[in-house]
């Protein structure tokens, strides 16, 4: 199951990259396409933050992951590097669980 997901994702992602190199550059004249490609990641990433932090199967829960997110947000606001953000967030959840 994981392998088929990996191969399909690889094909789809490469398909977009290769299509961009193949199509005429006049597609850039369509503002809707340009907007969709730049805005869609924001919507999907915001949703991934929500599902990764608050979802447990089909229910919404509050647990140590929320503390991770708060610590991560604080680090990002302080303009700390990506690794510091991720490590601090991991340490926060680990600390809450160890209490």
């Amino acid at each position: 199951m994981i392998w088929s997901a990996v191969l399909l994702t690889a094909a789809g992602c490469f398909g977009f990259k290769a299509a961009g190199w193949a199509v005429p550059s006049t597609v850039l004249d369509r503002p809707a396409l340009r907007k969709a490609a730049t805005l869609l990641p924001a919507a999907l990433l915001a949703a991934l933050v929500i599902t990764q932090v608050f979802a447990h199967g089909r229910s919404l829960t509050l647990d140590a992951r929320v503390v991770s997110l708060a610590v991560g947000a604080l680090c990002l606001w302080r303009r700390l590097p990506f690794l510091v953000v991720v490590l601090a967030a991991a340490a926060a959840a680990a600390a809450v669980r160890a209490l």
Partner: protein
Amino acid sequence: MRRSLSLGVAVGLYGASFGAAAVVAGFSVVQACAVSLLVFTGASQFALVSVLGAGGSVAAGVASAVLLGGRNGLYAVILKERIPVRGWRRAVAAQITIDESTAIATTSPPAWTHVGFWWTGLTVYVVWNLSTLVGAASASAVDPAAVGLDGAVGAAFLGLLWPRLREAWPVALGGAVLALVAVPLTPPGIPVLVAGLAVLPALVRR
């Protein structure tokens, strides 16, 4: 070239967190490495392992990841104007068309666009794959929940979203609200796709 190399270090740390996240989601070390080698676009890779790790279907995981990868197609259209590539090299150029290589190429002086794109893309490719291996191998040696890796993945998504918030915060907010509403109503993975609808108001408005 110096900018490409310093970027490589940052990417290494990001790649290691992907490797760890994939193992947490139930991928083997080999599967985690295959994702980085074949998919090679960070946000999509994280999305795939996050959706499958939460019990989402293959279709939901693949759809989220591929939709996130759509922006690379836009990058390619912008790059082909500045970097002429023919034949088999075009397939290589396509695979290394990602956020980092596009950012360096489009912000370099015109004479360096070419060098910036290839150096950054290839450096990131090598570093990303090596660091995925290191991250995946280390994560399989520990208990992911005890070291807080699940919380770290949420923060990683926020880190990817952060630079987009200045321009796209209304869409991000809409996506977050749609996902919150959809979690109790739909199977895992679907809320992420539902959130994609948040772009529609911006597309309709002129």
